[in-house]
């Protein structure tokens, strides 16, 4: 082996090929020229392949290309040596090179066999093109059928791509848009400013809506302006930074907003009208009541004068006059009732924090002297945010009702409060005769006393006032009662006051 290596370039053991056999010049040079030719070509081919492999970065199985290079290079060298042997019989070098060539060739074979199954899966160029076209078609369809106008601009503000919706929105053909400055789609008054904004944006591109807090407008080919909403997306491409703008025409959205606003305005106007007419009604009640009271007082006074001035009046006349005076008093009470009822809507309220128990106790102090009925406060009483006068008026009305209806002997009135979710429920309960279910709604209406007409005590406004007051402050009032089982009047006070505030 050592001998082989040391004699690698020794030519003394063999004759040169020219001298081995009877070569004619034609036969010899046919071999020599063909071998040189082959060698030359086999040298060139690896360079071309290597160049291709280097340039084509994402080539599948790139190592195989290098094996091809080596294999072809080796083959070429074999041919070179074959030519040289005509003069210099370097058969040992030739052997080594042939061995190398065989090794590289087999390596290539193995490599090829190994990748063959995968390679078979690779799409052919034509097929790849079809796939590519499909993908491109899909993307184009998406782009074209997008409901937004999409506009791609480069950093000089030149339009490089638009979709169909953009054409629809702005009324231009895309050939009129591509290559034009984006500012052509803006109303003239915004163009200069936009150029500045655009340059700033390219300095610091972010995905964001455009023109935060400002109203944006586009302008159509025919010069008509329309309100738009624009989203901006920076895109890095091989040809530099670009921005994809997504444009939506918001004319309709603004229109529906306007309509909503308009209907809210109308609602507000209606509410205002209702408030006004309620106010007017209350004022009307006030004025009418006073105007009605004056003649009533005149009738009352004059009947007194007659009674005083007439010495000889028949018993019957005297009685009739007294009945008349009774009716006058009743009418006066009714008018007072209307006045009081209308006053609920007229007086100013002030909502403050109060403890409910002391307020109830004050009302009890005022009412107790006139009654032998026992009043009990049951359980705890909450703090309330309410108008003090209104609360006492409600309690006063319910309590005096309860005292009126509780039995004169053994009468008991119980007042209690209950915490219920978003409100407090107060209850005033008597052990009187109770109220039949079919009267439960009626008793809260004005002048719907269940007592006889001539009962001067009962004007039929107490519960109506309670209802008006409670509802004014966002609560409810109801009665829980069966005939013969007493009555419990309940009302709610919201924990968060919602009542109307006047003044």
């Amino acid at each position, binding site marked *: 082996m050592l001998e082989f290596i040391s004699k690698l370039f020794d030519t003394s053991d063999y004759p040169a090929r020219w001298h081995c056999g009877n070569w004619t010049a034609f036969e010899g040079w046919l071999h020599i020229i063909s071998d040189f030719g082959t060698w030359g070509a086999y040298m060139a081919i690896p360079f071309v392949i290597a160049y291709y492999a280097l340039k084509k970065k994402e080539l599948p199985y790139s190592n195989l290309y290098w094996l091809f290079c080596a294999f072809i290079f080796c083959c070429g060298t074999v041919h070179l040596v074959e030519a040289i042997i005509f003069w210099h019989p370097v058969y040992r070098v030739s052997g080594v090179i042939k061995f190398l060539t065989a090794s590289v060739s087999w390596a290539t074979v193995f490599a090829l066999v190994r990748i063959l199954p995968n390679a078979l899966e690779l799409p052919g160029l034509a097929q790849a093109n079809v796939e590519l076209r499909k993908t491109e078609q899909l993307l184009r369809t998406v782009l074209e059928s997008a409901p937004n106008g999409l506009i791609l601009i480069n950093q000089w503000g030149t339009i490089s791509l638009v979709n169909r919706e953009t054409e629809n929105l702005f009324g231009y053909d895309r050939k009129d848009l591509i290559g034009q400055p984006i500012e052509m789609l803006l109303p003239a008054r915004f163009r200069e400013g936009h150029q500045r904004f655009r340059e700033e944006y390219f300095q610091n591109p972010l995905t964001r809506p455009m023109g935060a807090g400002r109203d944006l407008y586009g302008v159509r080919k025919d010069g008509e302006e329309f309100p738009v909403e624009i989203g901006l997306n920076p895109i890095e491409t091989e040809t530099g930074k670009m921005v994809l703008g997504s444009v939506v025409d918001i004319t309709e959205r603004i229109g529906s907003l306007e309509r909503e606003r308009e209907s809210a305005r109308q609602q507000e106007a209606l509410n205002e009208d209702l408030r006004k007419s309620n106010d007017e009604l209350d004022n009307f009640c*006030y004025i009418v009541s*006073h105007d009605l*009271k*004056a003649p*009533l*007082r*005149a009738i*009352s*006074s*004059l009947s*007194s*004068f007659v009674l005083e001035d007439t010495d000889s009046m028949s018993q019957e006349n005297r009685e009739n006059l007294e009945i008349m005076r009774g009716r*006058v*008093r009743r009418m*006066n009470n009714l008018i007072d009732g209307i*006045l009081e009822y209308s*006053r609920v809507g007229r*007086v100013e309220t002030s909502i403050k924090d109060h403890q409910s128990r002391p307020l109830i106790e004050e009302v009890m102090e005022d009412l107790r002297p006139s009654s032998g009925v026992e009043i009990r406060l049951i359980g705890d009483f909450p703090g309330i945010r309410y108008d003090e006068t209104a609360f006492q008026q409600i309690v006063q009305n319910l309590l005096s009702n309860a005292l009126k209806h509780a039995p004169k002997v053994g009468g008991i009135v119980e007042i209690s409060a209950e915490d219920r979710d978003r409100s407090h429920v107060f209850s005033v309960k008597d052990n009187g005769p109770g109220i039949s279910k079919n009267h439960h709604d009626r008793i809260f209406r004005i002048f719907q006393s269940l007592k006889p007409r001539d009962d001067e005590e009962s004007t039929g406004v107490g519960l109506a006032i309670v209802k008006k007051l409670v509802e004014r402050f966002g609560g409810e009032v109801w009665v829980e009662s069966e005939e013969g089982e007493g009555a419990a009047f309940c009302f709610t006070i919201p924990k968060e006051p919602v009542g109307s505030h006047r003044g």
Partner: protein
Amino acid sequence: METEFEVLLIEDDMVDVLGFTRALRKSSDPVNLHVVAHGEEAFHFLQKKEGRGLPNLIVLDLNMPIMGGLEFLGTLKSDPALRQIPVVVMTTSSERKDIERSYDLGAAGYMVKPLDHEEFVTKVKRLHDYWKSCEKPDFKIV
């Protein structure tokens, strides 16, 4: 010489005037009563009286034509010559805002006209007794 107690009643309702007169008649001392129908007429009366002693008391209705009670009260109390005459409001209204407004303008008292004449008599008597017991105001022009 004791001067007679002099009252100016400003009232447009004839029956109320009658009632007031009757009520006064029932009170102990004779009272010199002048009646006018509204504020403007009252000022005419007061202008004529100036220098010859002004009324001891004005009883004033609120709801009247031409010049209402509150307007009269405001004008009277801003007149340095007349503002010392005590004014008692006597009206149908029991509205809190009317009561407050009257006192704000300088009323010395506020009386809601009762329905019953008997009650009316009691009230007027009390009013009369009270003002008789007060020292007669000094009407010098300031």
